């Protein structure tokens, strides 16, 4: 992936200052298929299955297992006050062997989700961290403009695809905004 998260966040913030682009409004829930830049096709399938009938209050953009960052799409969603779930496709750090196979999410609900062997550690302010694995921060949320960017350095899509109940509950809580964004 040729762009770092820091560069991405900077770019996304700057993009908010650009004039509004004349594009069609995105659907309420969009799952972006990056084609061969989606590292795990089953992650894409997992989000599609989990969100097939979702009716979020605000626009949701999900980018599963991303090897590229589609900055413009992200900007559009954030500009509309939506939520972007950006899931990392490049996972440089192996968690295994480890004692327990879970990632601990603390927001929007506290739950344990199966890890996916490898993670992309997150560097963010402590208040922005929403999940960790063995003390390693692996997910964050950040308000950007009107919207919220959720960065997942731990793949959630494969767990959704495999029917993981807690993964579904976590995503559902994000989508419905039950706990407030």
């Amino acid at each position, binding site marked *: 992936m040729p762009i770092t998260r820091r560069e991405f966040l900077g770019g996304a913030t700057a993009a908010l200052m650009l004039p509004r682009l004349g594009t069609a409004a995105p659907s309420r829930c969009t799952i972006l298929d990056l084609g061969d830049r989606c590292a*795990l*096709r*089953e992650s894409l399938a997992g989000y599609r299955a989990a969100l097939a009938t979702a009716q979020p209050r605000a626009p949701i953009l999900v980018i599963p297992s991303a090897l590229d960052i589609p900055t413009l799409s992200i900007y559009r969603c954030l500009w509309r006050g939506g939520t972007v779930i950006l899931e990392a496709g490049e996972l440089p750090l192996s968690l295994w062997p480890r004692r327990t*196979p879970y990632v601990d999410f603390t927001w929007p609900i506290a739950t344990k989700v*199966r890890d*996916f*062997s490898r993670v992309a550690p997150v560097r963010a302010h402590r208040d922005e961290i929403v999940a960790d694995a063995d003390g390693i921060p692996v997910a964050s949320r950040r308000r950007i403009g009107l919207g919220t960017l959720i960065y997942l350095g731990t793949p959630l899509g494969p767990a959704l*695809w495999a029917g993981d109940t807690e993964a579904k509950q976590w995503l559902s809580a994000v989508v419905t905004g039950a706990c407030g964004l």
Partner: protein
Amino acid sequence: MKKSIGDNMIPKGWRFERGLDLVKQAGYDGIELWLGDMPWFQLATSDADVRELRRKVENAGLVVSNVSTGLHWASPLSARDPTVRAQAMRIVDRQLETAQLLGTDAVLVVAGLVTEEVPYNEVYRRCVDALRSLGPSAGRAGVRIGCENCNAEQRFLLSPREFKQFLDDVNSPAVGIHLDVGNIHDTGFAEQWIEIHGPRITRIHVKDVLKHRGRCGDQSVYTNLFLGDNNWPAIRAAMTKVGYDGWLVAEMEARYRYAPDQQFHDTAKAMDRLISGQL
């Protein structure tokens, strides 16, 4: 029924032809070829060389009963890494190709591997998806994929009904079960597996198992036919009940320390007793 034994039983250092002579002399009708296990049959073995293997088998008065592989232990269809899964699919594809070249209609696949790291639900889903996509090509090739029950080692599909549900979910006439009656251990009874799977059985591996006789009394260990705890009269009766008349393939895991060729003869005699029902 016909008798076969794996080429991976051929003593180390023996040439393929010498092993075939032993298999024939011991009274077997065929040989199971293990892709990737023996130097003469690797993934890189060319089609021409595979045809040459068939010629040697037939010259020895044998046929190839089926194509098996242990390569999926290292490259499982259930791996999280898509590149490993792609390799696993290539292995099955090559099994199907070589089965056609060798004139047999069955391959053995170890479908999935549950570990502490890769959980059951993921393994199940990936294996179903993989076998659904492999089914049509197997059907076109006229070859059936037999998923082996490696209950203890795979920690997957531990009961016969669970295995049936799995095959129902795959829903392909070209995908069945390669039943190993020695692998069931304490998770059930081989004769019940035979009853439940009946026509879906592609081949049967035979070996015996000594339950709870391991070093500390808490392990099961494989042994020769009739030395273990399998209920062979019941197994034989179940084969008759479901009309199984296919290959019995010897897969002996404990090898003779001395006179290794003797195991071929002893096992063949035991299989004759099993087939004849004189138990």
